[in-house]
């Protein structure tokens, strides 16, 4: 590895002890989605119900009695993670159970594409769920087809050379923030304490919480298994994937100031970017810089805005996205 980064001492991570992702899962070696789930359940604990639509995790959990998750799992149709979770939450609410976290855990295809409509519906109604999109930037479970989370220039089987993907990645956190949900954030498997903190914060908030988790995928990114966490860290430290959170669509907090290493440090470790020309790479470099300017401008604008007006008292309880 040519780049030296500050690394976590794995012996000294401040994470909950209990592992609810047990041995014997079916993820590929180096899978970021397995690590992501392990961290998520460390954060949320055993009183969690997990909703999984069609995605890699529909396979990773494994068949009974060898399934790996130590919490209840509902495996649902592709387009329904958010609304399935909303139904569970409504039933729990009727039973007076507000001590159980309902976690919708979907891939990028199930979030950015086919599940987008039902996610937006659930978010607009401010359903009291935690939604984590674990994003490996393509349909990896069916064999690497592009999704709207696939970044510019990436090879997939449906964006083969020379027809590589010309569009940029859809910005889900901004879209979710514009729904004015209480909490939207990005996270990375390379920053486990940050991810765990964000989930615990999400759990303490009523209403819809959305976390966009970037994960590595050696099979789909054409990268080395041993570099999964390193590549995830480079996604953050090159500025490609900023770590930040947005409260009620206005209050932005940038959680980590990247080292802004050159994007080539991130791109060169992944075969899916191998065909990029210097011109393509320069476009990515300039896009990353522009996105950061935009993010900082939004953060500045949010900090200078007055708080939103309070709703009439009789509606204050119902319109919970306005806070308090």
């Amino acid at each position, binding site marked *: 590895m040519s780049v030296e980064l500050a690394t976590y001492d794995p012996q000294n991570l401040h994470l909950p002890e209990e592992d609810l992702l047990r041995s014997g899962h079916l993820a590929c070696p180096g899978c970021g989605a397995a690590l992501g789930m392990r961290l998520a359940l460390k954060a949320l604990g055993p009183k969690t119900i997990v909703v999984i639509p069609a995605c890699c995790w529909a396979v990773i959990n494994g068949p009974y009695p060898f399934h790996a998750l130590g919490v209840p799992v509902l495996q649902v149709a592709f387009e329904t993670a958010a609304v399935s979770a909303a139904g569970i939450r409504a039933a729990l609410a009727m039973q007076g159970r507000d001590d159980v976290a309902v976690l919708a855990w979907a891939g990028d295809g199930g979030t950015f594409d086919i599940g987008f409509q039902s996610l937006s519906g659930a978010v607009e109604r401010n359903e009291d769920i935690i939604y984590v999109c674990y994003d490996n930037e393509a349909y990896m479970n069916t064999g690497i087809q592009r999704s709207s989370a696939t970044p510019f220039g990436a090879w997939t089987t449906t964006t083969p050379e020379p*027809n590589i993907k010309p569009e940029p990645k859809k910005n889900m956190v901004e879209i979710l923030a514009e729904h004015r949900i209480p909490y939207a954030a990005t996270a990375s498997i390379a920053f486990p304490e940050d991810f765990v903190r964000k989930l615990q914060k999400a759990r303490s908030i009523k209403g819809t919480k959305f976390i966009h988790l970037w994960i590595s995928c050696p099979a789909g990114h054409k990268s080395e298994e041993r570099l999964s966490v390193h590549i995830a860290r480079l996604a953050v430290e090159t500025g490609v994937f900023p770590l930040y959170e947005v409260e009620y669509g206005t209050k932005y907090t940038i959680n980590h100031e990247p080292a802004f290493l050159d994007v080539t440090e991130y791109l060169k470790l992944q075969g899916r970017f191998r065909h990029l020309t210097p011109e393509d790479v320069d476009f990515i470099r300039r896009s990353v810089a522009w996105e950061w300017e935009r993010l900082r401008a939004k953060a500045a604008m949010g900090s200078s805005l007055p708080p939103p007006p309070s709703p009439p008292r009789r509606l204050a309880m119902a319109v919970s996205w306005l806070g308090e």
Partner: protein
Amino acid sequence: MHADPKGVLTGLHFIDGDHAACEGAIAAGCRFAAGYPITPSTEVVERFAARIPLVGGVFIQMEDEIASSIAILGAAWAGHKVMTVTSGPGLSLMMEHIGYAAMTETPCVFVDVQRGGPSTGLPTLPAQADMMQVRWGSHGDYNVIALSPNSPQECFDLMIKAFNLAELYRTPVFFMMDEVVGHMTERVAIPRPEDIEVVPRRWTSRKPGDYRAYEPGEDLVPEMVKAGDGFRVHITGLTHDERGYPAMNPQAQDKLVRRLVDKIRKNAHKLVDVRGENLEDADVVVISYGITSRIAAAAVEEARAAGRKVGHLRLVIVWPFPEPLVAELASRVKAFVVPELNLGQMVREVERVVAGKAQVVSVPHAGGTVHQVEDILAKILEVAK
């Protein structure tokens, strides 16, 4: 007319049914395909993504199957031959637009690489359990055409036919593959373009002022135009009159829906495509389709070797069901044996048409693999006693 040479990879290939289906579509003139990844059909869209730009066509990977099934209808009305491809759960999502395609008489091909269901079922394993869904799945009355290939070669050959029938009858045509046919690799011979007959769109020869969008010809099929050519075009899923404008009354409904059904029903005799073997002296006839026909053929051969008078009727066009042919057989055979990779779907059609004149025995299989030859053979021997 002949196929456009640009889209025809003449020669011998060693490819699977998914890839062959894509080549058949391109050879048939398909220039717009929309799809979404779903096992076991994903290879079709992967090949489209690589191949169709080379022939001046467009493939779009959509955000879901709903979008795929709509986008092709838009492209059809803008003048192109179109197709989408999916499997079980995706097909279920497409149902509203299948009805819309039937109602608006949009030529289009839906490829269904069948897998075990219901719901997520068996994504990587075969079934033939969507046969009734494609016939009856969308709401309301309409009629469709469905073909059932049993080899990669037929995925190519019959795909040409599927596109031709979509153009001839202006109706959604279903291409009922299954996981085994889709993933089985065999020799596929692609003919020369001049040996491939393709049916062009039935463009109207009328002037814009004289054209009526849904005025049927003798075969009950109206002529078509495309948006932007100066014709008055109003396409709607509402019940409409011959001009295409909404007409919400029982008379318009009766006239339109009856014609949508009749244009297939009354032309059903032209839509018979079966492969019969040893039917002349048969006491027992095995009726099969798709991948099951290959296992059934082996069972029939063994029964013949054991001295039983058994014939085999393979349905290539499954919908419309060849009613007169089966009725004629029913008048002279003792029994029908119907193996299929579902718990009894097409067997109901056989029972309906046979109407008690002969014994009808189902050989059901819930899917996940194909039948054993012995299972079908045992039923044949049982009824042939």
